[in-house]
């Protein structure tokens, strides 16, 4: 698996931008909303989830672009029994390079928005629960667009609708939790189910899409 992570990292390019984008987006949204803590507090879950969704989509959008363009993908496809380890490596690479820093930054941002300290860990858990669903659909879209020149835009267009369910349930679950509700609300369970569902489907879809892009 380490090899696949290194494979993912070597073509990662702008993945470090995810954390920068995430923080900037949330900070600017906070400034736009204004200094009143009650409105900041009520908008916080939506802002953090939106920032995470956008940062994820943007960082995964070109996941396969470099490898398709420089011929690496073709060699990998010919040399390896299956592209599944490669796709999973890309996903793992995203988790290490982009998702992990965002999950560390999320509680800090939420605290700045006035969320109670004892609710921060739970909110981060919910974000971790929903992020795979967003990331995996974006990864599948990136695989579809691997051979295209303007792939990034195409990827975001395809993946955006799939980000809607995790966004809805993620924001609901987070609002519920920061307002004093239980962590494992029905919304949180649906969020986990969405991620598991995508984890079961999208890697195989992405492999098929990459094969198609190589035809």
């Amino acid at each position: 698996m380490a090899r696949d992570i290194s494979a993912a990292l070597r073509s990662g390019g702008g993945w470090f931008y995810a954390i920068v984008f995430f923080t900037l987006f949330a900070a600017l949204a906070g400034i736009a909303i204004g200094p009143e803590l009650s409105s900041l507090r009520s908008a916080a879950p939506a802002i953090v989830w939106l920032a995470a969704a956008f940062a994820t989509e943007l960082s995964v959008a070109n996941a396969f672009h470099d490898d398709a363009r420089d011929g690496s993908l073709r060699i990998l496809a010919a040399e390896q029994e299956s592209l599944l380890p490669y796709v999973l490596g890309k996903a793992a690479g995203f988790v290490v390079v982009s998702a992990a820093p965002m999950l560390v930054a999320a509680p800090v941002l939420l605290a700045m928005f006035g969320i109670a300290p004892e609710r921060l860990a739970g909110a981060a858990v919910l974000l971790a629960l929903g992020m795979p669903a967003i990331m995996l659909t974006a990864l599948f879209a990136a695989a579809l667009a691997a051979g295209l020149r303007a792939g990034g835009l195409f990827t975001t267009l395809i993946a955006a609708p799939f980000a809607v369910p995790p966004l809805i349930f993620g924001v609901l679950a987070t609002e519920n939790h920061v307002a004093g509700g239980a962590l494992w609300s029905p919304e949180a369970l649906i969020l986990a189910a969405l991620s598991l569902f995508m984890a079961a489907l999208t890697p195989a879809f992405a492999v098929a899409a990459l094969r198609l892009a190589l035809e």
Partner: protein
Amino acid sequence: MGKEAGLIEPYERQIAFRADDAGCDRAGAPVARGVCMSLKPGEAVQLFGANGAGKSSLLQLFAGHSRPAEGAIAWREGEGAWSPARPYNGVFFMGHEHAVKPALTAAENLSFWAQTYGLTDAAAKNAVYGALARMGLGDYAGVRASRFSAGQRRRVDFARALIARREAWLLDEPAAALDAEGADLVAAVIGEHLKAGGLAVIATHDTLTVSARRMVIG
């Protein structure tokens, strides 16, 4: 630099290749048609032809990346039967792109490919440094590829051939962007490969000093 300074050990397998009236398309349009060749171990063909004649498309076809639009290609291992599928771990393909990541050092790039080609970690390390030394980049192993010239990147990419140790080499413009010394180096390595019992199909514009049959496409 290794003691044997990069001489390619004789290959254990004898691999032969054949194209019978093979034709291929590029983006749906026919490019090369009626290509016939037969390569025994130790033989090579240089493909010539104008831009767009279909040299690269033919190499993609031979590598198994696409299917023949007409005719057939076949491989044979030893005295076995001819088969359209490329022999397992038998083909090395180098496209006209550089499969070299700018963010990684020369050694890191090649280590990745060594693993992809199935080398163990210990074997990979020796092979990587041996191949870099052979390509005249021994002092540049730890330098990021983003600081390399196009010719140096080409050398790194070509070093893959020494690491992969495959019997059949399919090379698309192996000497592109190389200086005279680099082109001679590539030709010498291809010569060693043929002497070791390998075969090669080389698409090229400038004649490499390799003992190879010439074939004009288009």
